[in-house]
């Protein structure tokens, strides 16, 4: 016989692995087999990995087809679409489909893939519960998305996140539920998981971690998901993406050896020598696989085997994981757990959202996690695969291939090399050419100017570094970026940048600020910590938990430390008005605690000096009984509102200055400010309350209230500026509150109002708090909201036992104990 009789090859399953296997086989041994494929899905072979872009609408199904109908015809392959094989008869060597087709084989390849894990919870079979596995699922999801309503994706792994991103693109309101504390925990370490969660949330997708699904709710179709903690998330679509398991039912029924997958040797043959297994259903050397690279490796080996090469063997290699969500760059490879015998190299560039981590063992890369910049993933993968000794380039390894061998790339040179149309500011879509052009045309020399004219780095500010490099490049020595005074030695950022970034990046804890803004120290210093604490208290009222240990001792002990370590106590006297009862209570306290000095302050109240710290709570308890609250004489906050007697008594008084002063003080006490704020209200231009050297002052006149601000009477002496005249007390209060709130939101820590005003300019302040009613209302409302959390008397809190430890020694070691 001149020609070998053709053998019959039957393939169960028509996914990517058998598709690739056939390509290899047709190359290696054309015409050796008559091939018949049974595909449970009613369609040709397509790229399952690209289902995500189909769901997002970035691709059509036609674009992801690997083998069209023509390919099967050309290669003489019989494809049964929509036929599911229900039984294998290994004795008769036939397979039977659910439509009754019985096909004999000489060689059989099982490629049944995997099935999605459906959580065993009530309601998991309701209409509207889908998995994310094939084109039918995608079509069903796209149909559901037309409602534009709510979807829940169960599972924050690769598949779940891609499904979530796709549904979001289809304009659904999406929530991802993930069982573990961080997303993709099998591929990412917690640091990268955190960045990933942020990126996902930035897309408007809600993420709930540590979410245990208890039930899917609904009568006949899905109405919501109930979590174990009782929360209910409304949804009309639930996508189960909690994992997959190999589809081994058919093989098991046929009596083949199975474990998690169908057991296959290194040549991909099963326990029956005429049957091979490839793809997600196969288990080789104790491993099952879900990523395409090892599945293609299986395909290569199986094809070689079928072509008669008995030496082909499956070789395990770690495969990098990548997430296919546009705009999220993520790369994970190998083993990245900590261990005593391992070292790590970490690079964080928080402003760019970059995190890179290499795990080394014996000077070789064994694991890599890249987030935000994955350009060097392939290179790291190569180094790992080849087990390259990296000790020579260890210092620069993390910076990537471009930095090896030769001089490190100067960042300015890198910016110089960018083309003119390279986008610098993503927020505002500003490219390099535009920025350079404006700098030249308008003669811009400061970052603020560039921001004002081009909007580059004016939103989130994460491209500030790039913009500055462009300025250096364009202006040469004329540009001095160091003009911005850093907050302290822990950072190169100035106060204004830090404040802006706290808001732009929604940083809500000192730890978050230090991580995201790349603090150079592990826990800051005595300069930056109180400043950050203030910024966070001011920007996130009700959300930020005050960091007590970041406050200066006066604000921790709620009294003023004196040079000998004792404290002074100043109770509040509203508007400087007191009574016999109050004075008597003060006298009693002074006697009871042997307080050495009692003095009247410049702010119209009484200071008791020389009190031992241990006595403070008892002193406050007694003062509290007489109705006193803290005067905050120690605070970067509202101090006093000094008044004169106004129309109550004074023959010149034009308005009730005492009443207004008390009203302002009662409205504003307890608020924290960048530096101390002292106020005064005078009943006539004779100005007995000395309102014209205060941070904020009011001069009452016949026609209303003249509002003054930005005075100083300390290190500097400066008369106030006039903000404007208002007619009523209500207006006066609203303008003053708005002014103080604007100052609270914008000033640098420890910057008094007069210094802030000098920077901002009087016209701008006047425009915002006097002329622009809407802005004024906004400032006013935000102040009122923050007062809900600020107006708590710190003294009575401590009398009730808060921070007890602050006022007691840890231990007293007596003479006897020490000497015994």
């Amino acid at each position, binding site marked *: 016989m001149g020609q070998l009789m053709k053998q019959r090859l039957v393939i169960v399953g028509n996914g990517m692995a058998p598709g690739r296997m056939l390509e290899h086989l047709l190359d290696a041994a054309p015409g050796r087999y008559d091939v018949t494929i049974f595909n449970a899905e009613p369609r040709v072979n397509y790229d399952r990995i690209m289902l995500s872009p189909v769901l997002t609408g970035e691709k059509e199904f036609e674009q992801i087809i690997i083998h069209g109908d023509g390919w099967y015809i050309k290669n003489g392959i019989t494809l049964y679409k929509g036929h599911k094989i229900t039984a294998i008869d290994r004795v008769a060597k036939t397979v039977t489909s659910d439509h009754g087709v019985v096909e004999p084989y000489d060689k059989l390849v099982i490629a049944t893939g995997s099935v999605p894990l459906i959580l065993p919870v009530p309601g998991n079979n309701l209409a509207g519960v889908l998995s994310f596995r094939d084109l039918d699922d995608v079509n069903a999801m796209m149909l559901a998305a037309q409602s534009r309503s709510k979807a829940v994706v169960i599972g924050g792994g690769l598949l779940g996140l891609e499904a979530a991103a796709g549904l979001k693109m289809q304009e659904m309101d999406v929530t991802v539920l993930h069982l573990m504390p961080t997303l993709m925990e099998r591929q990412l370490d917690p640091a990268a998981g955190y960045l990933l969660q942020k990126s996902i949330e930035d897309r408007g997708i809600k993420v709930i971690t540590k979410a245990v699904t208890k039930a899917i709710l609904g009568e006949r179709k899905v109405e919501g998901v109930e979590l174990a903690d009782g929360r209910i998330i409304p949804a009309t679509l639930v996508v189960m993406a909690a994992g997959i398991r190999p589809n081994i039912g058919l093989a098991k029924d046929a009596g083949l050896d199975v474990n998690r997958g169908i057991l296959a040797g290194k040549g991909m043959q099963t326990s029956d020598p005429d049957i091979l297994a490839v793809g997600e259903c196969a288990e080789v050397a104790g491993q099952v696989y879900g990523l395409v690279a090892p599945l293609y490796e299986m395909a290569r080996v199986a094809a070689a085997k079928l072509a008669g090469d008995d030496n082909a063997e499956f070789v395990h290699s770690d495969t990098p994981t990548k997430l296919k969500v546009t705009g999220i760059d993520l790369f994970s490879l190998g083993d990245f757990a900590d261990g005593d015998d391992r070292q790590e190299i970490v690079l964080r560039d928080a402003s760019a959202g970059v995190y890179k981590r290499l795990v080394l063992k014996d000077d070789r890369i064994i694991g890599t996690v890249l987030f935000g910049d994955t350009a060097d993933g392939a290179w790291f993968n190569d180094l790992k695969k080849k087990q390259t000794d990296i000790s020579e380039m260890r210092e620069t390894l993390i910076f990537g291939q471009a930095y090896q061998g030769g001089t490190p790339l100067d960042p300015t040179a890198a910016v110089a090399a960018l083309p003119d149309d390279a986008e610098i500011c993503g927020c505002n879509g500003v490219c390099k050419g535009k920025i350079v052009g404006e700098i030249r045309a308008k003669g811009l020399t400061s970052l603020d100017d560039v921001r004002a004219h081009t909007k580059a780095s004016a939103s989130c500010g994460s491209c500030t570094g790039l913009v500055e490099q462009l300025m250096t490049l364009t202006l040469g020595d004329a540009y001095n970026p160091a003009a911005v005074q850093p907050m302290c030695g822990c950072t190169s950022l100035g106060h204004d940048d830090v404040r802006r970034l706290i808001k732009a990046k929604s940083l809500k804890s000192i730890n978050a600020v230090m991580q995201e803004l790349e603090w150079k120290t592990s826990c800051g210093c005595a300069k930056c910590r109180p400043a950050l604490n203030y910024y966070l208290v001011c920007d996130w009222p009700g959300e930020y938990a005050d960091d007590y240990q970041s406050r200066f*001792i006066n604000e921790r*002990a709620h009294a003023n*430390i004196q040079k000998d370590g004792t404290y002074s106590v100043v109770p509040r006297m509203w508007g400087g008005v007191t009574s016999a009862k109050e004075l008597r209570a003060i006298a009693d306290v002074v006697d009871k605690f042997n307080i050495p000095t009692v003095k009247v302050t410049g702010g119209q109240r009484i200071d008791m000096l020389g009190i031992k710290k241990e006595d403070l709570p008892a002193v406050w308890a007694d003062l509290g009984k007489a109705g006193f609250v803290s005067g905050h004489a120690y605070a970067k906050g509202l101090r006093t509102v000094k008044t004169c007697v106004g129309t109550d008594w004074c023959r010149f008084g034009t308005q009730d200055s005492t009443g207004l002063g008390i009203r302002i003080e009662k409205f504003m006490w307890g608020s924290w400010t960048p530096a101390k704020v002292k106020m005064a209200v005078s009943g006539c231009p004779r100005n007995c309350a000395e309102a014209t050297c205060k941070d904020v002052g009011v001069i009452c006149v016949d026609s209303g209230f003249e509002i003054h601000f930005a005075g100083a009477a300390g290190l500097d002496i400066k008369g106030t500026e006039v903000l404007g005249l208002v007619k009523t007390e209500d207006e006066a209060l609203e303008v003053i509150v708005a002014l103080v709130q604007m100052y609270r939101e914008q000033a640098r820590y420890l910057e008094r109002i007069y210094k802030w005003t000098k920077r901002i300019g009087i016209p701008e302040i006047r425009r915002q708090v006097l002329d622009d009613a809407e802005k004024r209302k906004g400032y006013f409302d935000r102040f009122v909201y923050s007062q809900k959390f600020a107006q708590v008397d710190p003294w009575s809190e401590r009398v009730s036992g808060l921070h007890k430890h602050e006022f007691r*020694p*840890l231990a*007293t*070691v007596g*003479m006897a104990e020490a000497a015994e």
Partner: protein
Amino acid sequence: MKWVEIGSASDIPQRGARCIETPEGKIAVFRTADNRIFAIEDHCPHRGGPLSQGIVHGAAVTCPLHNWVISLETGKALGADEGAVRTLEVKAEGDKLFLAIKAAASRAA
């Protein structure tokens, strides 16, 4: 020298301090962000400020009176300032802290 039990580490706030009254004066016991414990005299070498009342950062404290920064490890002033404060040994056994007190000095006191 003698070890005297002074309480437990959890009684001291992280990035904070508590005082111990002893016959040899006030001792400040600090707990850092990474839970290391240090004891030094509660007396700034500059003008005697109570270091226990300062802001704790890294293994250093900033004096509340004039912002000298004192190393908790060595007791020495950091930066441009010169001066040092006495450090004392502290040891932990389980959660319990023990401070090394000079027995001789206390007898004399």
